[in-house]
């Protein structure tokens, strides 16, 4: 059962990595604008006029 010490250590470490990733994203300003990216991903560089206008 000693393996539990190792496994818990792993899980806490993994959780800490995710927490760190969240902090990094926060500092990087990735949570500043939560709306525009959702629209931007739908926009093409060169939309075909006939295609999207029906």
């Amino acid at each position, binding site marked *: 059962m000693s393996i*539990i010490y190792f496994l818990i250590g792993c899980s*806490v470490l993994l959780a800490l990595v995710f927490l760190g990733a969240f*902090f990094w994203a926060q500092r990087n300003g990735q949570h500043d604008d939560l709306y525009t990216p959702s629209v*931007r991903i739908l*926009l093409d560089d060169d*939309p075909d006029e006939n295609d999207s206008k029906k």
Partner: protein
Amino acid sequence: MKQAEIDHKTTCYHCGNDCADECIEQDEKVFCCNGCREVYSILSQNGLCGYYAYNEYPGVSQVKAGKRLDYLKEPSIIRELTDYSDEKFTIVTFYVPDIHCSSCIWLLEHLNKINPAIYHSRVDFLRKQVNIRFDTQLITLHEVVSLLDKIGYEPLISLQDVVKKQAFDKKDNLVKKIAVAGFCFGNVMLLSFPEYLGISVYEQSFRQFFGWLNLAFCLPVLLYSSTGYFKSAWTNLKNKVLNIDFPLALGITVLFVRTAVEILTHTGPGFADTLCGLVFFLLVGKFVQRKTYYHLSFERDYRSFFPVAVQVIDGANERPVPLSDIQVGQRILIRNNEIIPADAILLKGDARVDFSFVTGESVPVSKVLGEVVYAGGRQTGEAIELEVVKPVSQSYLTRLWNNEAFTRTQENRVQTFSDKVSKYFTFALLLIAFGSLFFWLPFDLPRAISAFTAVLIIACPCALALSTPFTMSAALSIFDKNFFYLKNTAVVEQLARIDTIVLDKTGTITINGETSITAHIAATETERQMIYSVCANSTHPLSRLICQYLDNYIKISTNNYYEAPGRGITADVDGHFIKVGSAKFVNVMQAETSSAKKTEVHISIDEKYIGYFTIQQRYRDGVTSVHSLSLAYKLFLLSGDHGHEREALSSVFPKEDMFFERTPQEKLDFIKQLQQNGHKVMMMGDGLNDAGALKQSDLGIAITDNVNNFSPGSDAILDGRSLKKLPAFLKFSKDALHVVYISFCISLTYNVIGLSYAVSGKLSPLIAAILMPLSTFTIISFTSIATHLAAKRRKLI
């Protein structure tokens, strides 16, 4: 389909406006004006017609007066506007109010195709901002702004943005604190489960290991996430105020100390999960409470209304000068539609100044040479020259901002319900805690301490602290759906408490720029045509209104046209001498005019009196519903305008409660007077002249037709279309308060249940761990459902 095709032929391809009157065609597409066509041709030349693919008619009508952007060449102004600049590139962020659809995002992020010197542009849709990085060598700030202007996205550059840029980025770690608390909460829950499920005797070493880990996870929660509560409790104690943060901080401390002691002495598992969960839920409540409207500003003052720079005439040449550098004695040039930034004497030109935003006067005022023109007015007509007599910050209008109402902090205007209750709550809590301590003390010391700490833990007002934020934020989003934007959740409570409503007239209960005109003339068709022809010569707003009214006539040529500024016009038409103007100008006996003083234009032909036009402001839809408020609230009308419409408004307001021709300072004093008589006053206004009253009142609501336009600093912004819902809003705010009361009772019930365990000193960590999330869940679901139902009852959703 056919119908759609026909529509396409008469609606502007760019902005979707109806262009039946005059059509401009290009590439088989129709445009309502040259502005729209120009935008289209710039886009099509640069292969950016994809703009039109995402939305139909994505543009905004370009029928508007061009603005001068010369001041953007001034180095001192450039320095203040840019975020970062060196020899290679410059970064600048603009506020563009016209951003409204996905096409806007697409176009503004493809500026690079129009001018390769713009490296990068990013749109923040909710804030309506665009961040642009461009080559400093190849393109200037002035060129960037005129490019934006050319494609129909004119950035709004005002003095306040320049001044307040620094204050904008307020550092707040709430999200990080929630992340830490959530992280610890999750891990602690996981590690606490074995304890609750039972650990067998030969696995006792795990128990200690889990305990140590739990304690380790509690540390960041205590030392990082919950610091705000300790700070707030401490400052409130110093000010001898007991708010809800005190029992919370006490509960957190006791939870931690007891957990640490139990784990270190191997006497029990402690309350690590309750501690982490408590802080996590509290912080989430705080997060929910803090709703921000990125696109709205509640703190605007005259600086965001005034331009950044003004043209100064310096001998023969003119140059733009930043407003802050304007000195007394300088000669300034104001063109059509520009705002006069400082009190000044008129030196040259025909001044017709629209003061509706400053004084509430609905009709533009004509000024004669040598007269003082007050700051804040908007010139309509030709360019004028003025000499500044007072610095910008000391003028008639801006002096208002020196009043103490603007320097006072707003926080403690109304004591919230939760503040009041938590005082008694804290006393009761301490009483029960010490009571149980002293009850057990003579028999059983460990049990006494256990009971004392258990009371403080279980009665920690988590659900109590959450009921207000969750109810109020639910209410806020209901208001929001009805175009009523509140600054923060505390405003809902203030709304429920007011008993007196003061309204401004111009722009508040009337619609700015919309007037109705009625004719009282006895004229034949040819006479009407003559009147039309004379008025068509004039650019005066009243003449234009008459022309609009007499729309279907054809203009015939006029001779000897003469315009007396501020009084009227005369001309010969077909050998008839026509006079149009004020009663005095046309030589009308006062008896012939109607008794009430209204805005009137009198007309005579060959010195024979024909009749007059009356011009009235158009009222908003909601005016009648405002009247229904008079049963429950005291209503006042407080206007800067003349009392022309006293009669018309007497159906809404009691006659003795209408006040006209009030200066901004008098308005502020009027509110103050009401407050001193013990009233809770709500002020509704739209202009700069109401700014002082809005600030002084217990609840200031700014009314605007377009929420992106300027509105004075206030607690809430109401879209003019929703004025008719005002009675429902007021009732709903009271409902919301009732929801808070009920949820307080619910959380108190939970506290009583918990206390019955706690006072006996037999509180198990499992009960605490179940009770706390359960009460939180109950409160959150109850408040959101109840608020929703209340909104439905008031027909707000």
